[in-house]
């Protein structure tokens, strides 16, 4: 019989045998993900960073995603083992040493969601929410999006996602998908400072993207991952050391034109995606932000929220 439990309630042996069978089902937000491919680094990672997530050792239903973390060839299964994420379609992924299995796992899930799950408009963005609504932050890698997302968690927001805004096709409502926040290089100590040491995973050193660590989602984020929210603020943040804090209100048209290229499936969904993105602005206003420190970005967001409320009143 299959039952849903938290990763932390399972023994290492149970996880290992389920990963070997390819029957470990990870539930998170709107997606069910079937994972196969056992390795010690992956089990360590799941037990640490995904400890509060809901899983089944035997799947009770079919899944959105099936991700196989396998050796690139038979030699690399035994000799200096390597791992590649295999989401069932061809992806441009380089084999990584087995110690980097967590990275392969995260990349594999991201690819699967970006390219396979088209019942939502997926936009490359960080999303957090409180009871008034969600803040969506769309930015290129390296613009401080992850740090900002992590900082907002400390302000009482719940984590939706650090990677994808999932926008519902009819209603433009945002879906939580609270995977761990991926931190690169110099952002690791910043977020460690913000969140506290116990929330940061061990560092994966020397990956193709430099040093990587993850800020774990909190149990409350995971337990509320079925609770959707409407967007209230849409931000295009840009971090540069020493930059003077600056914010500019964007009109809806400009904001839409900036969200479209950040979507991984806009072209595929066409009109439906366009309508959903447009509807985001039923309740939300958009700003471009530039800043040189996390505190500055937070006060800019406070100002933006205040302006929005003043406008509504």
């Amino acid at each position, binding site marked *: 019989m299959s039952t849903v439990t938290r990763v932390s309630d399972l023994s290492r042996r149970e996880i290992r045998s389920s990963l070997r069978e390819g029957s470990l089902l990870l539930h998170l937000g709107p997606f069910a993900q079937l994972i196969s491919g056992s390795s010690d680094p992956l089990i360590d990672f799941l037990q640490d960073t995904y400890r509060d997530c809901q899983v089944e050792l035997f799947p009770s239903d*079919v899944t*959105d995603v099936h991700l196989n973390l396998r050796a690139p060839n038979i030699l690399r299964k035994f000799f200096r083992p390597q791992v590649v994420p295999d989401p069932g379609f061809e992806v*441009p992924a380089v084999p990584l040493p087995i110690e980097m299995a967590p990275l392969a796992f995260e990349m594999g899930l991201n690819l699967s969601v970006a390219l396979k*799950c088209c019942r939502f408009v997926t936009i490359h963005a960080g999303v957090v929410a409180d009871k008034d609504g969600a803040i969506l932050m769309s930015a290129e890698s390296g613009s401080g999006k992850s740090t900002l997302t992590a900082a907002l968690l400390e302000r009482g927001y719940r984590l939706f996602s650090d990677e994808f805004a999932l926008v519902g096709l009819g209603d433009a409502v945002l879906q939580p998908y609270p995977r761990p926040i991926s931190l690169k290089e110099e952002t690791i100590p910043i977020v460690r400072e913000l969140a506290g040491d116990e929330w940061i995973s061990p560092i994966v050193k020397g990956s193709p993207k430099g040093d990587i660590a993850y800020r774990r989602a909190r149990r409350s984020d995971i337990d509320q991952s079925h609770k959707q929210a409407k967007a209230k603020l849409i931000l295009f943040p840009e971090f540069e050391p020493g930059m003077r804090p600056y914010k500019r209100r964007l009109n809806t048209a400009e904001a839409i034109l900036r969200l479209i290229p950040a979507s991984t499936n806009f072209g595929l969904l066409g009109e439906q995606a366009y309508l959903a993105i447009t509807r985001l602005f039923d309740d939300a206003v958009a700003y471009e932000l530039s800043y040189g420190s996390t505190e500055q970005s937070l006060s800019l967001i406070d100002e933006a929220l205040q302006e929005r409320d003043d406008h509504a009143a």
Partner: protein
Amino acid sequence: MIMQRKALKQIVGLKPLPEKVLKRIKLMIFADAHHVLGQMAAALTGAHEGKINDVFDNALLRTAHDHRMLHFEMNRLERALEGTEITPILLKGAAYVARDLKAAQGRRVSDIDILVREEELDQVEKLLMQAGWKADQETDNEYDQEYYRQWMHELPPMRHGKRGTIIDVHHLLLPRTARYKIGIDQMIDGARTIEASALKTFCPADVFIHSAIHAFADGAFDNPVRGFIEHYYLFQDLNESDRKDLCVRAEQVGAEKPVGLAVWCVGFLFSDENAQKMAKNMKKPMLFWLLRWALISKAMDGLTSPLAKALLYIRSHYLRMPMRLLVPHLTRKAIQWRPMSRKPVDLPLP
């Protein structure tokens, strides 16, 4: 083999889905890997509860995109040829979508294939170039360009400069050197205009005939599961009189053997009695028993599939050209060979 025939039947909805979840997951992975998940979704959507509907939604949204793209390309094609007397015949996926056949429902489509008369070829190429199509990079070298023009049944593939979509312009259904000689003029004469359009499709019997030729007389049956399912649906789309036509027509145009094989496959794999009856009276290709084993092994991807693939590969070349052409061609290709370039994809990565 019994179990695997079951998989095909489950995909088209002739048999219920496996109750056991792991088996059901495997079936869906199988369907996805063989590019028929969309067709499975179209056949079964709404019939089940739970997660499967999400997975089907994903697949249907994707094929909806393909079909939209195809309609747009058809429109651009008409526009490119406007003012000429040329009325291209849509082939394969484009034809199924344009005619809204069962074979189109949930089908993935990537390229658009058209057929024109050989004497129209130069003009069509010129007009398409003016409309923004260019020689596709993959074959844009002197050898390939000449090879296509001298020996093949189509122009070298053209890719649209802005939209990136591919169009294949055929003037025959098989290479000039192929062993089967198909009565293409008869097929072109029998083609029917699509309402409110300058485009045509083959008559229903010829649509099936072309699909059979494409699967069993050209190439190494590269997408077997999809091919079988295509034949099944195309056969369902033929009415009583189309089916009578099919036998006569297949003989007329010189495609009795591949058509016989396709009808046999529909009968055997999907237990379709009409197809079984019909296949009995039709000619089959040489070494029929070996061929049908190879086709099915390749589709099911079991232990024997490498041997099956090798056989089909050799057969495809045997059918395609005589030795005096084949040997120099393969030598040239072997020298030119380079690892498959992976298409770059823009992805948001952590």
